[in-house]
């Protein structure tokens, strides 16, 4: 087992252990904190696929995170009010079944990512960063100015959506749902990375001309990766909405895009468990600094700045050493 594999196992088991330790200590708040880590790590795992493997610096992943959140919020509101979502051409009612909501969140994010990707992937470098940001802002302002679902005030989910055979209102059970989803997506990421598709995606980052010369169009590979990446982040958004029982346009804001990016970079770009390490460290810092001073963002900024300037390769870069290319 390589050092990175050991660290990955430690991270996975560590996150699993936190809520149970918290339960034994009688500190249920830490369960919510661990759930937050799992969900935000999932958003990062999605971005890492585009950013780490594909080299697509998307500064607009908040769009998918927020879309997932609104999918959960809107379906749940319609189910709660017992109003159909729309009645024509066929009847579609709301739902408070998590599985269905996840499916809608994934499909919605994927379709939007496909459309954004069609345009955005024509550009590269800084233009790609800015056009993804622009699309996310477009959706953000749309959510703010569209009054039907709360506009700027957001939308409350009065009862957390349900999962078959489980009680999602129990923090531990909800944590386990999020944890299993996170692990499943990490597993999918690992399988994708080691597949022929993953190899093509990494070549598309390193040397697109060469990929094209072997008869594979880099654009298509990137587009597919962008769509999968967005779908995972959208799923994370649906879970995040259920965690807070609230969605608002702030889930779509560019700060969220920046934060998801921070998780990935803090953990180590392109590392499988990087987003989990990054999200965990970020949330722990946020929590402890927030307990010490109300100006925690100031110190968070300084720490982040030092990490970027002096620690290359993120947490996993320090712990597991430089990545070895096979």
């Amino acid at each position, binding site marked *: 087992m390589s050092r990175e594999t050991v660290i990955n196992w430690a991270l996975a088991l560590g996150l699993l252990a936190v809520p149970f330790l918290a339960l034994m200590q009688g500190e249920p708040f830490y369960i919510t904190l661990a759930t937050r880590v799992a969900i935000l790590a999932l958003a990062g795992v999605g971005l890492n696929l585009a*950013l780490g493997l594909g080299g697509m*610096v998307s*500064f607009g992943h908040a769009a998918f995170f927020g879309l997932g959140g609104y999918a959960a919020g809107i379906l749940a509101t319609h189910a709660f009010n017992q109003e159909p979502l729309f009645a024509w051409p066929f009847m579609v009612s709301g739902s408070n079944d998590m599985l269905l909501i996840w499916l809608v969140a994934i499909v919605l994010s994927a379709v939007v990512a496909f459309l954004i990707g069609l*345009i*955005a992937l*024509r*550009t590269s*470098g*800084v*233009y790609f*960063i*800015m*056009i993804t*940001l*622009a*699309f996310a*802002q*477009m959706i953000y*302002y*749309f959510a*703010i*100015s*569209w*009054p039907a679902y709360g506009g700027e005030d957001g939308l409350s989910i009065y009862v957390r959506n349900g999962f078959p055979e489980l009680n999602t209102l129990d923090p531990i059970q909800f944590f386990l749902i999020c944890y299993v989803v996170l692990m499943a997506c990490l597993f999918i990421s690992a399988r994708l990375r080691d597949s022929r598709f993953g190899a093509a995606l990494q070549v598309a980052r390193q040397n697109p001309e060469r990929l094209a010369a072997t008869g594979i169009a880099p654009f298509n590979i990137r587009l597919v990766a962008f769509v999968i990446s967005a779908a995972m982040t959208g799923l994370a958004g649906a879970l995040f909405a259920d965690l807070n029982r609230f969605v608002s346009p702030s889930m779509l804001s*560019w700060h969220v895009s*920046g934060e998801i*990016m*921070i998780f990935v*970079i803090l953990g180590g*770009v392109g590392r499988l468990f990087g987003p989990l390490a990054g999200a965990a460290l970020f949330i722990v810092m946020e929590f402890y600094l927030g307990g010490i001073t109300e*100006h*925690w*963002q*100031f110190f*968070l*900024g*300084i720490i*982040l*700045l030092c990490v*970027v*300037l002096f620690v290359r390769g993120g947490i996993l870069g320090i712990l597991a050493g430089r990545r070895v290319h096979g």
Partner: protein
Amino acid sequence: MTLALFIEQLLNGIQFGVMLFLMAAGLTLVFGVMGLINLAHGSLYMIGAFLCATVALATGSFWLGLVASLAGAAAAGAIVEIVVIRRLYDRDHLDQVLATFALILIFSEGTRWVFGSFPLYLDIPAALQGAVSLPGGAQYPLYRLSIIVVGVLIAFGLYLLISRTRLGMRIRAGESDREMIGALGVDIRTLYTVVFALGAALAGLAGALVGAIQSVQVGMGEPVLILAFVVIVIGGIGSIKGALIGAILVGVVDTLGRILLPNFFELFMGPSQATSVGSALASMAIYILMAIILAVKPQGLFAAGSQ
């Protein structure tokens, strides 16, 4: 809608565009010359506004405040460049985005620490209060008109600076070949600091000028920053001309869109629905504009050379 209202809104759009140009000019210079994405540019705008408001409050003179905002923002820019930004030039865009994102956190929270969360207010100087009559009978505030004049003068000044002076020659040389002008004996580190401070001063000026129209508060730089990015991407990164045209385009489309689109939709639907559809579309209009322009010209309208 009357002609007078239209002209007034058009002028508002141009004034907004001119202000965006002051922000975008610095961003596009820094990107063109140093290849750096600076998200913290909005913080320099905020610093300019806060300095102007503080000095104007202490001395009673808006003009002293304006001088302070220019000098202070330039100094802050130079310090940030020397301490942090200098280390980012040979990094990839990802590191630059993250590091300057961290700078935003530091500046915003630092400002809140010093000044508190309450907004400051800045009065329009006595000499520029009042309004002028426009053709069509409308009254337009003199102050907004002077912002347009200042912006146009600065655009012209920048044009002269870049095309006619030795410093401008070096900036243009730095855009086309960084290593070469270093090899020719130009002190490139100082040049970079000067360019960064120049961009910072322009952002500070924009902040101070706008501070008298809006309230001066933490976070005021961020919406403007994003719009300034839209501007330079539309105009073509690195091009001052592109920044000017892009800025006016964005300013006018955004301002007129907010007035015209709700009116337009009233032709087909009820007033309240038209207002919500129209205002939703209007707030997205510039991003739609940007997506269309980039879909047709992925390098923007006036891409500067081949980067």
